């Protein structure tokens, strides 16, 4: 076990001790015990920077199930390191924030921090595992721990609803991803991602390539809240705000982004990958931004905005994958899309984290998150206002913040899409910049609504439960650090370009690099009067106009979105599934044994008949048949007559007697076919069973004891005739196709020499195959004890008496 493995599982180990800390040190907020770990891990991961910057990766392996090729291989490369730093860095800030956000004596802190640490370990495991099965295990642990975190206030209905919804959707995607992983294993014979990547060219034309691609993408889209799976994210906002800031802006929802980036070297060259990733991404972006404007809850706006921004990153990754088709690095304009994706990933984590924390502060200090009630808080909370305005301007893509830079690069990438001459992009490519531009306008509008409707305008004191005031400094530290990063990355973006972005790019697009080469990333504010600049200007102008007139056109939303809301569809499907399966089960599981017998026999007929026909198995030959005598015919007629008469007998007594008659005739058959032991036994047993039938008959209740003929039912008649026919056909075919001789010759020869007996039946019963007899007498003993118990043990009667 290396130090790296220890770093991944360290949160798990710490989580074991959390309840202990919680119980022992009641005076100290449990979060303080958690805080050092992410800081330490952040520092530890920083030490990998020089290594990844030089283009190498760090691999450590411990065996888990070597026979199945499943080993815990931890690999740190550019992409993994970027995510690890995000997870631990923002993790530390979120823990700090939660210490001040969650009250020490009101909340179940031991639960909270255990879940949070589980989640942190799971995310580290996802981004640092090279083995896909191990990655999948951690992936499900993220779903599971986020389920626990969303349902943290489990006494609320909405929390439980949101938790269930996110669980169903992400686990659905996770299972699809597992399918994809298995398909990849079938194609390549390995679970190691590094090895799969090296075989990417060989499997490109494999028939399972496209199914694997679709399965992996399904996993990524559900986790990253892409269209149409984004619906769980707004409902996940019932979680405590630190959770929303951590999981639903910075880390978990980016697991899908990570997955897409990770698999770009494998699937990226396929046309489906480009269209699905970039198409769904851009669709999600515009959908999310349009719907975010409609929301009235601060966290709901942020949730839809997260959906939209994730769509942006996703579409950039899709476009970046197209870079594979242009094999020259120096003039390859599409790598800029990947640069933009990574850069925006970092930026989004910083500004969205700070915005969530600011929303949490507003909620914490005023008691509401509804922007219809909020207003004029600027004077009460100047620091929160500053944080929000910086975060929102960065989100809207305004200079001089980092969001501006990544949005410019996003426009650059989208404009370049029109220049591609593959995948039919000559005709459809124009959609990308147009949609991106419209989505950006809406992004601008909701960013403005978020800040200005909360902090400016009129202050209505009667709408709040308490008098608002600035938050304590502890709550403000984390968002202040995040917005400082927003500004720092805005002014000095090249701090990131060599250290994080370039190594991450070489993980995403390894095939474009020659040995020893690395991506040159340079982000600058001013690249001259290009088309992107005019697009940004257009966004600001149109956005301002639309924001000012927002109150007039927002009625438009009332008509459209209700019909398009996917939540309705989700609820409809869930309820529909439930009621349909309930009805279905009620229809066929009706509790009547008769119907079950009908099913059993019907399937019996169907399966046997289809086998007979399908295998062409019916044969009939008379070569193996002995001659038929008079006695046999007479007895057969007796048996048949008796059986038929049972069906039509009116009185039960007649049926019982007829049944006895059939049984005695069978014993005559045994006599005729020279089976004296069987004949004796059959005779006695038939007598006993008829006697028992008569006992039952005698004790029938007087009530409803009217004697009627059995009613005729067509289905029953058909099925019983069918069963009889099918069994006859099978018996005939079995008899007509004897494949080998009977083994009875051995018994005939050895009964006396080996077992010293002359009655072969008895010798077989007690000697050759006495084992069967041993358990048959056990069956008899159990039956008699059962009868004894049923009759003697009357708990009900004892209670009454």
């Amino acid at each position, binding site marked *: 076990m290396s130090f790296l493995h220890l770093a991944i599982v360290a949160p798990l180990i710490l989580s074991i001790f959390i309840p202990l800390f919680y119980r022992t040190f009641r005076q100290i907020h449990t979060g303080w015990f958690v805080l050092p770990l992410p800081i330490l891990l952040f520092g530890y991961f920083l030490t990998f920077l020089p290594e990844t910057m030089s283009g190498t990766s760090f691999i450590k392996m411990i065996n888990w199930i070597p026979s199945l090729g499943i080993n815990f291989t931890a690999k740190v490369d550019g992409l993994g390191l970027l995510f690890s730093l995000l997870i631990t860095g923002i993790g530390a800030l979120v823990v700090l924030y939660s210490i001040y956000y969650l009250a020490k004596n009101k909340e179940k802190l031991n639960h909270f921090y255990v879940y949070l640490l589980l989640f942190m370990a799971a995310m580290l495991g996802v981004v640092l595992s090279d083995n896909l099965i191990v990655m999948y295990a951690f992936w499900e642990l993220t779903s599971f721990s986020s389920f626990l975190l969303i349902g943290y206030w489990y006494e609320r209905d909405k929390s439980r609803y949101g938790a269930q919804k996110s669980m169903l959707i992400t686990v659905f995607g996770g299972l699809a991803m597992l399918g994809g992983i298995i398909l990849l294993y079938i194609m390549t014979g390995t679970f190691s991602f590094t090895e799969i990547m090296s075989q990417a060219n060989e499997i490109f034309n494999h028939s399972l390539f496209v199914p694997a691609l679709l399965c992996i993408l399904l996993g990524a889209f559900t986790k990253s809240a892409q269209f149409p799976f984004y619906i769980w994210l707004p409902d996940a906002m019932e979680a405590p705000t630190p959770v929303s800031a951590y999981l639903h802006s910075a880390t978990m929802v980016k697991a899908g982004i990570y997955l897409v980036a990770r698999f770009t070297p494998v699937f990226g060259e396929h046309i489906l990958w480009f269209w699905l990733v970039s198409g769904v991404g851009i669709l999600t972006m515009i959908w999310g931004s349009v719907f975010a404007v409609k929301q009235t809850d601060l966290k709901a706006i942020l949730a839809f905005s997260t959906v939209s921004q994730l769509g942006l990153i996703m579409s950039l990754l899709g476009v970046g994958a197209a870079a594979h088709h242009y094999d020259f690095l120096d003039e390859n304009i599409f790598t800029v899309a990947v640069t933009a994706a990574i850069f925006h990933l970092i930026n989004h984590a910083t500004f969205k984290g700070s915005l969530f924390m600011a929303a949490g502060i507003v909620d914490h200090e005023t008691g509401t998150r509804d922007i219809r009630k909020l207003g004029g808080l600027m004077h009460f909370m100047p620091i929160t206002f500053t944080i929000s305005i910086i975060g929102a301007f960065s989100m809207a893509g305004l200079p001089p913040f980092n969001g501006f830079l990544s949005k410019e690069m996003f426009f650059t990438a989208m404009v370049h899409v029109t220049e591609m001459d593959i995948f039919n992009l000559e005709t459809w490519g124009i959609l990308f910049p147009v949609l991106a531009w419209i989505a950006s306008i809406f992004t601008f509008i909701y960013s403005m609504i978020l800040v200005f409707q909360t902090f400016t305008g009129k202050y209505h004191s009667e709408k709040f439960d308490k008098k608002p005031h600035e938050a304590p400094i502890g709550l403000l530290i984390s968002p202040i650090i995040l917005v400082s990063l927003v500004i720092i990355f805005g002014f000095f973006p090249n701090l990131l370009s060599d250290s994080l972005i370039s190594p991450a790019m070489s993980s995403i697009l390894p095939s474009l690099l020659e040995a020893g080469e690395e991506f040159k990333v340079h982000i600058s504010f001013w690249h001259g009067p290009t088309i992107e600049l005019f697009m940004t200007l257009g966004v600001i102008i149109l956005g301002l106009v639309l924001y000012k007139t927002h109150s007039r056109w927002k009625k438009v939303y009332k008509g459209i979105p209700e019909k398009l809301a996917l939540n309705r569809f989700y609820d409809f499907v869930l309820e529909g599934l439930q009621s349909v399966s309930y009805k279905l089960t009620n229809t066929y599981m009706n509790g009547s044994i008769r119907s079950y017998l009908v099913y059993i026999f019907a399937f019996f007929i169907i399966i046997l008949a289809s086998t007979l026909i399908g295998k062409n198995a019916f044969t009939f030959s008379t070569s193996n048949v002995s001659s038929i005598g008079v006695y046999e015919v007479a007895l057969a007629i007796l048996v048949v007559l008796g059986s038929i008469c049972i069906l039509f007998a009116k009185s039960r007594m007649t049926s019982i007697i007829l049944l006895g008659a059939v049984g005695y005739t069978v014993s005559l058959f045994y006599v005729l076919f020279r089976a*004296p*032991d069987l004949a*004796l*036994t059959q005779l*006695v*047993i038939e007598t*006993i069973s008829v006697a*028992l039938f008569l*006992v039952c008959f005698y004790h029938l209740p007087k009530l409803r004891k009217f004697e009627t003929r059995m009613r005729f039912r067509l289905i029953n008649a058909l099925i019983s005739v069918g069963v009889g026919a099918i069994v006859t056909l099978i018996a005939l075919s079995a008899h007509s196709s004897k494949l080998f001789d009977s083994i009875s010759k051995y018994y005939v020869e050895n009964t006396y020499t080996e*077992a*010293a*007996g*002359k*009655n072969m*039946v*008895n*010798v077989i*019963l*007690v*000697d050759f195959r*006495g*084992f069967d*007899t*041993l358990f048959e*007498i*056990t069956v*008899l*003993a159990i*039956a*008699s*004890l059962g*009868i*004894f118990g049923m*009759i*003697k043990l009357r708990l009900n009667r004892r209670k009454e008496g």
Partner: protein
Amino acid sequence: MRKTNNIILETAIKVLLFFIVLYSVYIFTAGHYYPGGGFIGGLMTAGAIVLLLITYDIKTVEELLPVNYRILTAIGLLFAISTSAGSLLFDVPFLTHAFGDVQLPILGELSLHTATLFDLGVYFVVVGVTMTIIQTIGEDE
């Protein structure tokens, strides 16, 4: 309990019972060479006892034959399992029977077979099972 004068039946039983039991013992012991064996022998013995039950009542038969049939079943199973498992002591597979001519003090030379002990187990079980069923159903109100 209704009381009728069943003198003919009672007298006939006293004679018949003897033959039936004798016949069932014959069927049991002859089973290895002729039709019969533990199963049918046991049923026949049970039949004799049932005849007694019909003639007298349950209490009288219980006084005549103070046998707990459930224990008889258990004894039969024990017989069967111990003859089967006994072969393990001689380092041969489970349920390997042994037979041979044995010189006995009074009876002289006799051909004996462990399969008979197994069959005896079957016989006891069948008697026990049949009588348990009939007795419990008969006693039930």
